[in-house]
């Protein structure tokens, strides 16, 4: 955390001095290279295999978009550089030009849209409840007086707080320092439920000692569009990326790519996440849009 802060601070300083190039396509053409921002561990959306190799659903979508851009610009070779980003430094790195396209697990929301642009949404995350299969819990209203685990540093913490206040359901929050830790709280019985992004819950359950002992239950607590992030005010680059995605949505190929990462065994261990596309995700494919999370709440 500390390290990333220093990096962010240094970049802020550097960014102030450095002139911004908003024409990313021109930059790609001139330099023959592009920098992709990736995450080390964001479920199957973006993760590392070690040795500077990055894979995942969003990483693959970005690679396809960059392939199309390479053809469009008539480049013989496009050098894709990978830059690891964290939730703390991803926005500064995009705005100051270090990263051209960020392919991780960034929620598209209104406050971020002031600083950056997002490609059309290819994945909609649903916040869900995981519990022990024999707990008898089927809804958030049954969590009254129960212990609920969630991970420090995620939007789920805020979501639970709002929910508690809005509905008067009173539960005891216990915080894990990371997702594995929160799952341990559920596993050891310290927490009765674990509230988190559906994809992360599915992945943790799949990797647990006894996957049949857990299930994902209840209503969807929140939906958030997770999208590929780019610099603001660069319509040509955004259009190029969007066109690739829209093409995949239209041809139906997106379903195959989704299946590859979220349903089939994934490298390096061949574990299965087992998280078929939700209705919200399918809706985003049917009607390509870059609406922020706030618009999803209005429905």
């Amino acid at each position, binding site marked *: 955390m500390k390290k990333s802060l220093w990096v962010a601070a240094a970049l*802020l300083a550097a960014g102030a001095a450095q002139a911004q190039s908003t024409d990313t396509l021109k930059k790609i053409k001139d330099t023959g290279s592009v920098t992709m921002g990736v995450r080390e561990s964001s479920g199957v959306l973006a993760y590392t295999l070690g040795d500077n190799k990055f894979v995942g659903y969003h990483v693959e979508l970005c690679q396809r978009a960059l392939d199309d851009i390479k053809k469009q610009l008539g480049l013989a070779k496009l050098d894709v550089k990978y830059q690891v980003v964290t939730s703390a430094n991803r926005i*500064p790195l995009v705005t100051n030009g270090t990263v051209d396209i960020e392919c991780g697990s960034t929620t598209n929301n209104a406050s971020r849209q002031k600083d950056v642009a997002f490609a059309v949404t290819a994945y909609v995350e649903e916040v869900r409840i995981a519990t022990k299969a024999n707990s008898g819990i089927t809804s958030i209203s049954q969590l009254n007086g129960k212990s609920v685990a969630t991970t420090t*540093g995620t939007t789920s913490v805020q979501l639970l707080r709002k929910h508690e206040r809005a509905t008067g359901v009173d539960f005891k929050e216990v915080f894990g320092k990371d997702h594995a830790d929160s799952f341990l709280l559920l596993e050891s019985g310290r927490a009765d439920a674990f509230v988190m992004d559906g994809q992360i819950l599915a992945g943790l359950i799949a990797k647990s000692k006894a996957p049949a002992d857990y299930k994902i239950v209840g209503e969807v607590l929140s939906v958030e569009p997770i999208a590929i992030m780019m610099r603001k005010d660069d319509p040509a680059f955004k259009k190029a990326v969007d066109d690739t995605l829209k093409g995949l949505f239209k041809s139906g190929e997106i379903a195959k790519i989704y299946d590859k990462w979220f349903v089939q065994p994934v490298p390096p261990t061949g574990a299965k996440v087992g998280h078929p596309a939700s209705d919200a995700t399918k809706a985003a494919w049917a009607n390509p849009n870059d609406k922020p999370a706030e618009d999803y709440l209005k429905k």
Partner: protein
Amino acid sequence: MSSNWDWQMYCRTTTEQTVADHCLGSGGDITYLQWLMSAWGWTLSVSVLGLLVALVVGALIGILRTVPDRRLAMVGEVWTEFFRNIPLLVQLFLWYHVIPGIFPALKAVPAFALVVVGLGFFTSARIAEQVKAGINTLPRGQRFAGLALGLTLPQTYRHVILPMAFRIVIPPLTSESMNIVKNSAVAFAVGLAELAQYAQQVSEESSHFEEVFIPVTLLYFLSAFAINRLAGFIEKRVRVPGILGAK
């Protein structure tokens, strides 16, 4: 990109993000300022209670390590080496995850109590080391003189050895007391809502990293420095003229 600081975030409520009057939330709703203060409260509570545990246990173990009875001294040695040679974070995980796995009844114990005990025992090993060093600094003749005068061993400790030994170890104990404030940040790992947890959560929630970390840093500094000054005051008050450089 210029820095656009937004200190007003402290007056916003943690649920609806609206700016509250006087920076105080109402009807069970709290602002980030109130959350920060509550987090500071947890840090101070853990530190102060942990320090009490550490001082009491550490002094006892330190004394135990200097008594003539070999078996008792051994108990003190084992305690010190055990708690001194395992990283604090690992100790907290042992208290939180491993020991309740063996004794399920301990799962009902709140994380706060476990952190106080964990932090207290860890620091007690270090304090025991200093108390032992303080006692061993005194010439052995003082102990023999006390016993020769007809005092029992506990009386010799109470009236001859400890009054001097404790004065000698005040400066290193001050450092230990300041360390416990800083070490309390590991409580974040077991989900206690203290300053480090606050910093982690709120910086992610608000994306205002500087505005979150600067006050947290200052509060840690302030807490540790207050202990330093308090210890300095105690040291001055208990000084015996003519020894240890006192005038």
